[in-house]
């Protein structure tokens, strides 16, 4: 439901279903501050498909009534009663408002940037034109400081996606995906891939980053706190379930750099979709591995009454806050932590065992390497021996099937992401699979993953590691259509 003038209503429900009194007050105060600021803004020019308009004018009279409005501003956010952070976020909340769009139905999103530096919003997982995609490397326009814009696109494909800042952070650990600019974008499918009784959105993030020495000898980013849906464990509202209920968890890893492992003691996840795309084999697993920017939609049948923690399998992350309580009706007690399970994950569990039938028209090798820059520095990352922006252009031919060969010669795992397209996994560490369509895939250290890309969305297309420190250190390349 839309209520003009109150952006937290325009934005739709919070991930946990309803706004709390605290979030309402926070939203109201942010709105009041935003209104005050708007009145004081002078000569701020918005870029829009309708032409530049003063920011205030555009806020009051948008050329097209938006389906949603996002306002980027600094907020103070309570991760827990003892830990408050200051960060940039959408509409005064973390995660940002959940955007529910319908596949194939044109959508309009108004974005207002209250920050004092340019920003950009990327619609992760959407097959949309360059102008709307939200990547300055492709040519999408940045949103200037203290200005607004309106983005129009037709959502596709359906499924669980997300939106987030695509700004560089470089060495500023308050920018880029280190901050709170992320939210769920759920594109309603024409057909649901599974039956379920309830839906829960789970958004993972890590907070208060700092540089730390790593075992492999270079600097890495570490974190003080972790959260699910913007709250540290024990400081959110438990998820209430009933015995026998089938709960569909939509999980997004919005961490800037961390791969996470999730488990729910006594339960199994039946994976329905990866990165929003239904999987051919809905396998059941005890642990989910989810890399930065990956999404998993999985059903859990609630058949183990009790009070449990859905959270990180590693105690260090759990103690830092990455967990949420799952409480069966009429059950109470101390939440039981996830077991110490040897983590195991293989994408092929969810694919067809048979190989991809179609032969590729072209093969594009992409070799990932790093260059040591000192024990007190981040590594420099390279694709085919070159760091962005000095990379060679990679050419796609429209309509043709390209086999991308991701060869990771480094000692780190990399969640690599392709904009505006997805790809079908062909082989992982030499073992074939088919039918798994993704836009992010973790290429483990020292291994090779092959994936087929059908070039069907002309325009510049960015490819990069989704770990913020890696993409800021050269791990990007641009595909161009011939």
């Amino acid at each position, binding site marked *: 439901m839309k209520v003009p003038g109150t952006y937290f209503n325009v934005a739709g429900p919070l991930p946990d279903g309803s706004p709390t009194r605290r979030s309402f007050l926070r939203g109201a105060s942010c709105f009041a501050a935003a209104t005050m600021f708007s009145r004081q803004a002078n000569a701020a020019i918005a870029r829009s498909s309708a032409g530049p308009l003063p920011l205030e004018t555009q806020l009051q009279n948008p050329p097209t009534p938006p389906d949603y409005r996002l306002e980027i501003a600094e907020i103070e956010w309570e991760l827990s009663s003892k830990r408050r952070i200051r960060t940039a976020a959408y509409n005064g909340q973390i995660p940002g408002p959940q955007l529910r769009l319908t596949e194939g139905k044109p959508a309009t999103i108004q974005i207002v940037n209250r920050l004092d530096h340019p920003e950009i919003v990327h619609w992760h997982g959407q097959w949309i034109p360059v102008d709307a995609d939200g990547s300055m490397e492709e040519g999408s326009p940045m949103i200037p400081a203290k200005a607004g814009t309106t983005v129009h696109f037709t959502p596709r494909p359906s499924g669980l996606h997300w939106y987030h800042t695509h700004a560089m952070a470089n060495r500023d650990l308050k920018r880029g995906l280190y901050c709170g600019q992320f939210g769920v974008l759920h594109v309603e499918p024409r057909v649901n891939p599974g039956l379920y009784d309830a839906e829960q959105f789970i958004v993972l993030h890590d907070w208060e980053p*700092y540089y730390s020495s790593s075992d492999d000898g270079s600097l890495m980013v570490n974190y003080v706190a972790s959260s699910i849906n913007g709250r540290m464990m024990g400081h959110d509202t438990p998820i209430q379930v009933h015995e026998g209920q089938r709960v569909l968890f939509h999980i997004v890893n919005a961490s800037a750099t961390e791969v996470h492992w999730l488990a729910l003691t006594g339960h199994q996840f039946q994976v329905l979709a990866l990165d929003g795309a239904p999987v051919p084999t809905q396998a059941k697993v005890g642990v989910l591995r989810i890399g930065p920017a990956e999404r998993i939609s999985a059903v859990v049948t609630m058949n183990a009454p009790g009070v449990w923690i859905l959270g990180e399998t590693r105690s260090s992350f759990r103690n830092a806050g990455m967990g949420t309580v799952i409480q069966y009706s009429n059950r109470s007690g101390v939440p039981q932590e996830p077991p110490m399970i040897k983590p195991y994950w293989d994408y092929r569990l969810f694919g067809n065992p048979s190989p991809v039938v179609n032969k590729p028209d072209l093969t594009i090798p992409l070799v990932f390497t790093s260059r040591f820059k000192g024990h007190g520095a981040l590594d420099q990352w390279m694709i085919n021996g070159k760091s962005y922006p000095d990379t060679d252009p990679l050419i796609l031919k429209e309509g043709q099937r390209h086999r991308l060969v991701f060869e990771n010669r480094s000692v780190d795992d990399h969640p690599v992401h392709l904009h505006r397209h997805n790809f079908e996994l062909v082989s992982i560490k030499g073992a074939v699979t088919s039918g798994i369509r993704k836009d992010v895939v973790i290429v483990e250290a020292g291994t090779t993953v092959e994936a087929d890309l059908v070039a069907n969305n002309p325009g510049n297309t960015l490819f990069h590691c989704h770990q913020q420190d890696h993409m800021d250190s050269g791990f990007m390349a641009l595909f161009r259509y011939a």
Partner: protein
Amino acid sequence: MKFFFIVLFLIAAAAATAQGNYEIQVYGADTVAPGNTMVELHSNFTADGQTRTIDGVAPTDHAEHETIEITQGINDWSEVGFYIFTLEQSGEGIQWVGDHIRPRVRVPEKWRWPVGVSLSTEVGYQRAIASPDTWTWEIRPIVDKQTGRWYFAVNPALERTWHGPDVNQGIGFSPAAKISYDFTKQITGGFEYYADYGSITSIASLHNQQQQLFPAIDLNVSPDWEINFGVGIGPTAATDHWIVKAIVGRRFDWGHKNRAE
């Protein structure tokens, strides 16, 4: 590189000798990870040292000092180290020299200080054949900084003798410092400086100071191994003139992985 050589020149110019020949190491601010154990063997051979017995202390010339250091990480800001000192001399066999214990705390990395800071305190006993001062205490502030390929560390240590002829000396000043450069991911080279200036209230004459400069190399072959090798030059009369030192350390995580693993 120009800056590197200027700093080396300044260190060399200031260099004047060495601390006890049992543990020759400039501490970094890092502590051993929680639940992890670091076992190190310090092997120091005095190629050209004191040839006479002075105040009951055995000659150091051609002596081999082997020290076992076991350090246990407690949490992300503290550790405890324990030392077993031994001495081997021709005709004397291996002799136990003493033991020290060394708790250490640090500023956690997550505080995001611009430099690494920790504070170590070491107390223990050594037999009179190794040192006339048999019970000693040391407090060692540690400040370090890794920036790009460069590493800097200073340890302005203060010492106090509890039993021995230097009891009345009060607090002694024994600074150490290190500068190094990452030539590759695996090879780091630089210089380590060790000194004992005597009492802070009455700095010893240069002749009686111990000062030593070690060109040293660190090999970063694995996160589980620590390898350091150096050759020390002691230019003052109170210093052993040539010492060859090596440190080989092995980390045991006992299944306690780092947060990021």
